Structures are given as C-alpha cells and as structure tokens.
C-alpha cells in the first residue's frame, strides 16, 4: 500500500522517544527538582553547597530503597505487586547480622547465600501466583507475615555484627562508592531488558491473554520476576545491615510501602507493562531527597509523613496530567 493523503503523518523519532518514555522523563524532572530543592534548602541552611559528605550519605541512605524499588518494579511490570518486600529485607538483614562474623571473605560468601534465600522467598511468591491462581497482593500479604516471622526467629532482638570491611565495601562512608552498585544495577537492567525474559516481562504486563496466544512463557517469566524481586530485596537488606553495622529484624518493614511509592514516583504503571528500573531508581532517590529536604528546612519532624503524603498525591496527579497532555499533543 502506498501512503496517501489519509495516512497519518509520522511522528518524529524524538516525538516517539518522548511520548513512549514520558513516565521516565517525568521521574527525571521530579528528581531534578528534588535535587535543586535540596541544594537550595541546604545552602540556605548551611551557607554552603553540599559536598562529598552529603552526597555520600544521601547515596548510602538511598541505596537499600534503590534495590528494593528495582525489585518491586519487576513484579509491578507484570501487573503484580509485592507486599512481602519488607519481610525479605528483614530476613536478609537478620541473616546478615547473625552469620557474617568478622571476616570479609565469610561475609561475602554469606551474602551470596542470603541473596539466594531472597530469591527463594521470591520463588515461593512466584509459584503461588503462577500456579496457585491467587492474586499477587493476597499471596504476598501472607508471605510478608511468614518472612517477618522468620526474620524475628533468626534475630529475636536487634544486634549481631557486620564486619567493618563489609560496611566499607558496600556503603563506604567516605566517598559515594555505592554509586558503582547503582551503575551495575542499571547495566544489569539494560541487559535484562534486551533478553527474551525481559521482553516477555513487558508483554505479560501489556496483556497476559494476548501474550499467551503469542507464545510468551507466562508462568516462567512471572516466577523469574518474583525471584529477581526477592534477590534484590535481599540485597536491600544487606545494604541496610551494612549501613547499620548490625542487624534488626524490623527496620525493613517500611520498605514494602516505600518501594511501592518509589516505583510509582518513578513512572512505573501499577497496571503493568510500562516503566523501567531506571525510573524506580529515580523514584528511590526522590523519596530519599524529600526526607532530606524536609530535614534541612526544619519542618517539624512530626509533620514529616504529612508532607510526604501530600507530595506523593501532588506528584502522581500532576505527573498524570502532564503525561496525558503530552501524549494527546502527539
């Protein structure tokens, strides 16, 4: 067929790139605003720009959430949700504190084991969702309780120890080395996005029934998504333990909800199929920076949740409106 007058004009490549990545672009914009806001509040307060120390502490504070949010994004992309993230973070955190001992070598070995435990937790979720024909929200609500219970069994009271060398390796307090892990995470994501499973993941989130008709391996891909999610949540627990230099089987609880917030702020659709891990990473940093901004602007800490809640609603409503307007213009 030849193009004729009735054929739609082609969008430019740039136009397509903007329209198809609007969630990520908006997340980037919010992140830029958050960074700018932080710089402003900080420099007014401290009469200088933030330096290496602030950068390092922000990165180190954000990194557990970065990993938890990327994990959450895998599942959300399949149109699921994982409420057990907090439980897996707790379990990994507790296991790290009781197993790692004094040497770095042992700690690294145990890290691998703990990541595998996280993946196993994800496997349980994935099997129940894929074969149990239960809704993800219900499955992970139940396993959250189980994983939290296991964490408390492992570490009944806060304590244990993390080798200082391990802390230095993961969340070095002197320089933002942890950015390297985020860089690796982005690379790994980019490779995953370009794998068979990565394509299948998006296909399922787009339309599960059609995907099945098109030969996408739905069950297998879902299970892999939950396993990656579990392993990344466990990684979040390791970073958390490294930061605290000790374990606590309850500090991870909040990651269930904050990882969902980060994913939403990062432009990943809760209805599946749209968004990316890069967005989730941006969302994690936005979430962390908002806390910093509130801290440095001397907002009464008691009101902190209030401002976070208002920010979330405003960001989602404005983001939706702006994204919709841009897509309509195309």
């Amino acid at each position, binding site marked *: 067929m030849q193009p004729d007058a009735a054929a739609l004009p082609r969008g430019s490549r740039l136009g397509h790139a903007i329209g198809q990545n609007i969630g990520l672009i908006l997340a980037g914009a919010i992140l830029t605003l958050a960074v700018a806001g932080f710089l402003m509040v900080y420099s007014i307060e401290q009469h200088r720009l933030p330096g290496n120390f602030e950068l390092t502490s922000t990165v180190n504070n954000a990194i557990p959430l970065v990993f938890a949010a990327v994990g959450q994004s895998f599942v959300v992309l399949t149109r699921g*949700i994982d409420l057990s993230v907090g439980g897996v973070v707790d379990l990994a955190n507790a296991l790290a504190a009781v197993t790692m001992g004094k040497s770095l070598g042992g700690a690294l070995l145990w890290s691998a084991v703990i990541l595998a435990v996280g993946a196993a937790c994800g496997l349980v979720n994935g099997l*129940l969702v894929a074969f*149990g*024909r*239960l*809704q993800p*929200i*219900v*499955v992970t*609500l*139940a*396993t*959250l*309780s*189980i*994983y*939290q*219970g*296991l*964490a*408390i*069994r492992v570490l*009944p009271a806060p304590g244990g120890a993390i080798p200082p060398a391990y802390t230095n390796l993961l969340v070095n307090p002197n320089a933002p080395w942890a950015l390297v892990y985020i860089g690796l995470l982005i690379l790994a994501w980019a490779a995953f996005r370009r794998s068979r499973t990565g394509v299948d993941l998006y296909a399922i989130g787009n339309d599960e029934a059609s995907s099945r008709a098109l030969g996408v391996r739905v069950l297998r891909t879902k299970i892999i998504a939950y396993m990656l999610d579990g392993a990344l949540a466990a990684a979040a627990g390791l970073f958390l333990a490294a930061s605290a230099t000790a374990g606590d089987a309850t500090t991870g609880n909040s990651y269930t*909800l904050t990882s*969902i*917030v980060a994913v*939403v702020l990062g432009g990943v659709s*809760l*209805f599946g199929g749209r968004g990316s891990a890069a967005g989730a990473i941006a969302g994690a940093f936005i979430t962390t920076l908002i806390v910093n901004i509130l801290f440095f602007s001397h907002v*009464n800490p*008691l*009101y*902190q*949740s*209030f*401002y*976070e*809640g*208002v920010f*979330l*609603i405003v960001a*989602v*409503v404005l983001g*939706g409106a702006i994204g919709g307007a841009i897509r309509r213009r195309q």
Partner: protein
Amino acid sequence: MRALSVDTRRILYAIIAAIGLFVVGEAAHPGFLSGPSVASILVIASFVGIVAAGQCFVILIGGIDLSVPWVMNAAAILLTTTSLGKNTGAPEAIAAAIGMGVAVGVANGIGIAVFGIPAVVMTLAANGIVEGLTLGLSGGFTCSSCSSYAPPLIQTLAHGTLLGIPDALWLWAFVTALVSGALAVTRFGRATYALGTNPLAATLAGIDARRMTILLYALCGGFAALGGIMLVGFGGQASLGLGDPYLFTSIAAVVIGGVNILGGRGNYLGVAAGAVSLTVLVSVLLALSMPDYVRSIAYGVVILALLLAYGRET
C-alpha cells in the same frame, strides 16, 4: 437440593474454618471453648470485624484502603484529647472521631474516583497525611494538658455486658446485621456489586460511580474510626501503634472471608467469620505460649492454606 453458589460456599467454608480453629484450640488447650474464653476472643475479633467491614466495602469495588492504621490511631487520639478523659465531652468526641474517619474516606474516594489516583497510592498517601497531622497537631501526642485516657463512660461501655453478652459483641452483631443487610437487600448493595463487577456497565445502567466510590471509602474511614474508638475504650489509653496491626488483619479477614480482591464477589458474613478465624488462630498460639515469630509465620501459612483451599479465582 439446589447446588449452592460459589459465593455461598465460600462463606460456609469461612465459617467452617472459624469453628474448626476453635476446635483445634480446645484440643490444644482444654478450656479454650469455655464461655469467658470464647467471649473474650470474640470481643477481640469484633475490633477486626468492624474495621474489616469498611475494608470489605472498598474491596468489593476492587479497591483497597491502606489508610486504616492511622485513621484508627487518629480516632483514638482525637477521642481522648477532645474529651479530656471526661464523660461530659464523650458524645462530641465520638462524633468528632468518626467524622474525621469519614472525612479521610471522602478524601480517598475523591482522589480515586475524581482524580484517578490508584487506590493503593491514594490511601497510602492519606495514611501518611493523617499520621503527620495527628502527630503534628497533638505535638507528638505528648501535650500535658490533654488526657490520653478514654472517657470512663466509653471504657465502661467497652467492658460492660448486656444480658451476659459483652457490649462490643452487641455492637458487632448490629454492624453485621446492618452491613450484610445493606449489601443483600438495598439499592446501595446492588449498586456496590454492580460497580465491583463491571464499572462501565454499571455507569451505563445509571449508577453514579464517583458518588458510590466516595461513599464506600467514606464508610471505610468511618468504620476504621469506630474500630479505633472501640480499641481505646477497651484498652483505656490511646497509644500510637494501636491501629498498625489492623491494616493487614482487616485485608486478610476480607479475603479469607471469601471476598474477591478484584471486587464484585463476597459478603460480610464471610468476612466476620474471617475475623473470628484470625483472632482464634492468634489466641490458640498465645494459649500455647508460642513466641511471636511462630504466630507471624502461622498467620501467613493459615491465610495461604485457606485461600488455596477455597479462595482460588474461578
């Protein structure tokens, strides 16, 4: 005999599960089925049941309310601070607390139905907003001028009995009758199921989906506040974490009660049975002096087992 519908069967299963757990409790710990023991378990279940009533409404339209914990906390704190622990201000304090819950629910409903915010995000944000406002306005709940005790009247009511049955159970029975009746034989109930089954068709059949959504979230907020009031009346003193366990418990009670998390299917009778099951389970484990972690794990395992047994998607 006509075959029972899937929904009726699920309610029956939920009730059977609750009874079964009671029997297990008696076997594990003789005396578990004694009158006072059962009554005290049911009283604790009534708190779950009342909060779950609200959760049931929003889950029936495929929603969810994550703002339950802080609505409960706020209601408890509002009650104790506005009444100053005295009977004279009690009615106003109750009205204020429930009004606050309804207001939060209305805000949730507007955010979801008018602004199109996903329910998970909207109610999560609302939980934070209520938390911040409650802590901030109450000065971290440390203001010395205000009492942190519930008015004696409410405490008496919470602990009182009528015809040998605790007041809390009368209230729960009333709520159960009201909610199941409303769902079964009113226009409101039919509209709720229609909206939860097929929102587009419901709108085309003349149902105002926005108004219904706002109404249902308002009810959810109101029931959460009522749960907070009952808890503070029962415990005497408001504490900050009081509502926290009720988020997941209320959702769990709804789903093991046979309500489809995607909306449109289920009834409050099953939810009430679900609330009893969960409470009995905890009580059994407590009676056996199981440590916390066993309780937590057993909780998850039992929910999964019940769901796998009868909660599958059809």
